[in-house]
């Protein structure tokens, strides 16, 4: 076997092995509650994607424990927005407390959390990463727009925690894997 052919064969074989070990995204139930972690308006884009996929989903930027009643899946969209926090009239710490409480309650009620990070690098670094890490480490599946994972931040968490992750190139491409989670 020529050297180049061997390299290509090795690459395909390794990729196949890695792929076979990558965890399944899984199936989740509706109704869905969509909320933010960091109050970015990205949550509104996810709402639009859910509508396109005809999912039974309600969106609440400031969802609290009472909103989990009857919910089968919680989708959280992490990303910090100072304008969003201003609109909500809360501080970053208030928001972190709300999200931590919600995540804890969802875990106690066995409501699976799906993370959708669609804001790219604009919702990474700085004040966003605290929210990103909290949700990524506590979710059952992640859908990530690739630009927000250029530093493999989500890939590392996915591998360390064994959480399945689907990476897409554009926000609108996130609709399909999102729909598949529920169909």
């Amino acid at each position: 076997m020529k050297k180049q052919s061997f390299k290509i064969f090795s690459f395909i074989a390794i990729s196949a092995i890695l792929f076979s070990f990558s965890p399944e995204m899984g199936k989740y139930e509706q109704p869905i509650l969509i909320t933010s972690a960091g109050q970015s308006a990205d949550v509104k884009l996810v709402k639009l994607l859910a509508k396109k996929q005809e999912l039974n989903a309600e969106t609440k930027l400031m969802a609290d424990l009472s909103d989990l009643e009857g919910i089968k899946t919680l989708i959280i969209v992490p990303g910090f927005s100072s304008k969003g926090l201003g609109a909500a009239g809360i501080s970053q710490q208030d928001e972190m407390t709300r999200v931590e409480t919600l995540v804890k309650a969802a875990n106690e009620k066995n409501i699976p959390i799906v993370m959708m990070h669609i804001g790219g690098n604009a919702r990474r670094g700085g004040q966003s990463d605290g929210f990103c890490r909290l949700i990524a480490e506590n979710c059952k599946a992640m859908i990530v727009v690739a630009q927000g994972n250029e530093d493999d931040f989500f890939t590392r968490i996915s591998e360390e925690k064994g959480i399945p992750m689907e990476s897409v190139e554009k926000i609108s491409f996130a609709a399909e894997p999102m729909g598949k989670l529920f169909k």
Partner: protein
Amino acid sequence: MKKHHISAIVISLITILAGIIASFEFHKLHVSESLYPSERLSSEGMLSDYFSGIKDTNGDTKVYFFDSGKPGATVFLAGGTHPNEPAGYLASVIILENLIPEKGRVIVIPRLNNSAFTCTDPMEAFPQSFHIDTDKGPRKFRFGSRATNPLDQWPDPLVYSHKPSGQQYSGLESRNLNRAYPGSPKGTFTEKVAYAIMQMIEKEEVDISYDLHEAAPEIPIINAIVYHEKSEDIAMYSILELEMEGLQFTPELSPKNFHGLSHREWGDYTKTYPFLMETSSPVQGRLRGKTNEELILNGVSENYKIAKETGALRIAYRDEGEQLEHRVGRHLSGFMAIINSYNEIHIDNTVKISGLPAYQELVENGIGKYLNN
């Protein structure tokens, strides 16, 4: 004549000469550059047509109308709210000089805060102008201030209390047009200008309105479309459309309790759907280093590259720089995407325009190709 008398005369003459030169330079700041609207311009007016309280002041500014003659929606585009944010101004100039209205009408005010074009911000070392190369030679544009010229409104209060909300800002913001809406006919100079703009939006029954801006790379609201809650669907569809073109914009909801800004008050006080767009402009940032025309045009800043690499803050800076073509192109694409999204939602009252360069065309051909002179 004694020796010290001669010295005194020489020094006096030099001082007078310097004063004369300085006065010419100062006068130049108050001379507006010529703009060359497209052939499809329908009519021109003045902002004072909507509120006579600003007539014959530096707050008055030209209003350009492009009417297709076919019924449809009315679009209002504002450049120059902050004349130290050149991409917003240049985008409005390119639209003014290339627009072909095909349905509905478009109103353009390129120098929204005309007074702020007549000065620069103290202690910032900003150049007074920058030049764009065109086929017919370089064309000069003013680089102004974020705020109304203090010659038109002075002194600043220690604390600026926005009317009517009572929200408090630093005193400097009393001269910031984008903290003055809805304005007041009996208010300060800046509040009167804001009031005139509100009157125009209402009287012309504007459906979609834009306020074009730029901000420092370290500011959290960057490469963004800021929208009023009633404009949410239009904003979201626009962002998805722009992403398909390869342009990432973040959606930012206008806080209800952040008063005086166009994206809040235009939407609260009139029926228009307001949008404010921001690009990343290193010349405005604290880390920018040497401040010159080159930085305005090419947007290359080694300091921002280093700052981005540290990861300490989110820095919206491309390694190749934030060129003016790129920044203006983003505004033009955002302008079109919002119109397209509006049309999809409001099929009974659409607006159609053509003649504007796409983002890629602007980046490849340069701004000068789209300037008439």
